[in-house]
C-alpha cells in the first residue's frame, strides 16, 4: 500500500471566533475516490480551501505525499511564533501559496464554477496548462521557436482534455455561453489540464440533472483510471454512494465518521447529524 497522497494532522481553521475546521485528521489514499460529506456549514469548502492553499490554517499540518505544505516563506515562519500573531496573520494571508500547490499537483474546482468569462472554452483549458509550460514574456514577445512549440503542445493537450469531458465541439464559444452543467465540466477540464496528482471537486453535481450526474460519475471514474486521486465534496447521496470508495463525514468542523459507503450509512452519528437536515440533491 503506497503512502497516502494527502494527510491532515490536527488541522484547524478559525475565522475570528468561528471555528470552521476543528482538529481534523484525514488520510486520503492515493488513487482512490474519496468523498467528504456533511451538513451545510460543516466546513467542507473551508477544508478544500486549506488544502488548496487559499488561506493558511490556524494550526495543524497538511502533508502532501509526506511533505508538509507551507504557507509562508521561511523568514516569516521563523519570526512568526515569537511575535504577536495578529500582525502577521494578514501578512500570511498575503503570501499566496495556492499557485504553488497547483504546480505541485493539487487541482481544484469551485462551487460557483469561476470560469474565465473573457475567454473561449478552449482558452480556459489552455490556461489550465499554465503550470506545465514555461515560456514567459520574452519568448512570447519575440515568438521564439521554443515558445511556439510549447504553444502547440498546450493547444493539443487542451483539446485532449476538452474531448475527455465531452466538450470538444464547443472550443471557440465563449465559456459563459455554455449551460451550467457543461460549465462545470469545463471547470473540471481546466483543472485536469494542470496535470494534477490530486483533484478536489467542490460540489461538482450541484445543479446537474440525473443524466448529467451519471455522466459526471463516469467522468470521475475515468479520472481515477488516469491515476489521479479524486476527493469530492457532494450533497447528492446516490452520486456519492455510487462512486466513493471511502467517505469522510464532517459536522460543525469536526470529523464524526469515516468508512465505506455501507459503514457510513449505518453510522448513528452520521444519521443524527443529518436528522432534520434537508439532503437536497438538486440544490445549486
Amino acid at each position, binding site marked *: 500500500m503506497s503512502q497516502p497522497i494527502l494527510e491532515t494532522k490536527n488541522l484547524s481553521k478559525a*475565522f*475570528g471566533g468561528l471555528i470552521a475546521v476543528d482538529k481534523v485528521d484525514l488520510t486520503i489514499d492515493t488513487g482512490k475516490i474519496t468523498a467528504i460529506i456533511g451538513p451545510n456549514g460543516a466546513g467542507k469548502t473551508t477544508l478544500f480551501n486549506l488544502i488548496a492553499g487559499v488561506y493558511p490554517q490556524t494550526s495543524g499540518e497538511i502533508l502532501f505525499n509526506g511533505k508538509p505544505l507551507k504557507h509562508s516563506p521561511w523568514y516569516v515562519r521563523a519570526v512568526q511564533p515569537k511575535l504577536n500573531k495578529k500582525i502577521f*496573520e*494578514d501578512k500570511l*494571508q*498575503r503570501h499566496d501559496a495556492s499557485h504553488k500547490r497547483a504546480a505541485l499537483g493539487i487541482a481544484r474546482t469551485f462551487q460557483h464554477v469561476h470560469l474565465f468569462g473573457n475567454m473561449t472554452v478552449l482558452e480556459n483549458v489552455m490556461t489550465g496548462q499554465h503550470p506545465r509550460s514555461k515560456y514567459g514574456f520574452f519568448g512570447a514577445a519575440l515568438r521564439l521557436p521554443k515558445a511556439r512549440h510549447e504553444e502547440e503542445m498546450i493547444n493539443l493537450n487542451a483539446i485532449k482534455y476538452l474531448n475527455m469531458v465531452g466538450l470538444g465541439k464547443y472550443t471557440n464559444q465563449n465559456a459563459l455561453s455554455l449551460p451550467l452543467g457543461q460549465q462545470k465540466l469545463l471547470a473540471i477540464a481546466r483543472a485536469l489540464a494542470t496535470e494534477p496528482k490530486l483533484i478536489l471537486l467542490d460540489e461538482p453535481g450541484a445543479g446537474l440533472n440525473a443524466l448529467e450526474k451519471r455522466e459526471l460519475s463516469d467522468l470521475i471514474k475515468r479520472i481515477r483510471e488516469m491515476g489521479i486521486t479524486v476527493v469530492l465534496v457532494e450533497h447528492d447521496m446516490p452520486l456519492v454512494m455510487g462512486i466513493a470508495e471511502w467517505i469522510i463525514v464532517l459536522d460543525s468542523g469536526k470529523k464524526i465518521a469515516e468508512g465505506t459507503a455501507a459503514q457510513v450509512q449505518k453510522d448513528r452519528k452520521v444519521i443524527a447529524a443529518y436528522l432534520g437536515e434537508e439532503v437536497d440533491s438538486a440544490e445549486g
Partner: protein
Amino acid sequence: MSADQFVQYLMSGLTQGSIYALIGLGFTIIYAVTRIINFAQGEFVMLGGMLSYVLAVKEGLSMPLAIIIAVLAAAAVGAVMYLLAIRTARRASVISLIIITIGAAIFIRGIAGNRFGVNTVSPPDFTGSGSISFLGAYIEPQALWIIGITFVVTTLLYLFLSHTMVGKALRACAINPGAASLVGINTKAMSLIAFAIAAAIGGIGGVVIAPLAMASYNMGVMLGLKGFVAASIGGFMSPITTVIGGVVLGVVESLAVGLDWGPFTSAYKDVIALVVLLLILLIRSGKLAAAERAG
C-alpha cells in the same frame, strides 16, 4: 533643537495635522459607507477655501456668511457628484470608480481654475493676526481656530454617528450594506449623505486653512494625498483613529523638517507623506483587505 523650537514644530505639526485629519475624515466616511476611495476629497477642501475667499473678499459678504455658504456649496457639490457620477455608474468596477472620482476631481479643479483664476489667494484670518505666545512658541490665532474647529467637528461627528438614527444607519451601512438594506435602510440615500458630509467636512477644512496657508485652485491634489495617508493610518473605519492618523502625519512631517534630518528641507516634506503612506500600506492595509474579504 531646543525645547522651544520643539514645541514650535509640535504646534505647527498639530495644526497641519488637524487639516489632514479633517480631509482624512472625508475619505473615511465615504469609504466606510460606500467602499469607494474618493479622489476628489482634496477638491472639496479647495472649494471651501476658494469660495470663502471669493464670497468674503470679492463679493463682500460677511465672513461668517461666506463660510457657511462655502461649506454648504462644497456639500452640494459632493452630493451632486454622487448623484451624477457615482450613482449613474451603478455596478462599476473598482478601477472604473477610481477613474470616475479622478475625473470628477480634475473637472472640479478645472472649473475652479476657470472661475477663480490660477492665483493663490488668502482670505482674512478669522480673528485678528498677531501671534500668541503659548508654551514658549508663537502660534497664530488662526492655528488655534484650526485645531479647535477640528476638535469640534470630530466630536460632533462622533456624536452624530453614535447617537442619531441617521448616524447609526450610516454605521450599519459601513459594517454590512446588504444587511443594512434588509432592515430597511436606504443605502443609496446613506451613500448620498456620506458624500455630502464628507464634502462638507472637507469644505470646513478648506475654510479654516485658507487664511493660514493660502488657497489656490490646484491645492487639492497634495492635500488629498495627505488626507488619504491620515485615513490609512486610521484604518478607514473610525473617525477617532483617522484624526490620530492626521495628527501623527502632521507632527512627523513638521518634526522631520525641523530636525533638518537628512535632505528633508521644506520642499521635501511632501516626500515624507509618501514614505509614511507606503509604510502604512504595508502594515495597516493588510487588515483593511482582510476586513474587505470578511465583509
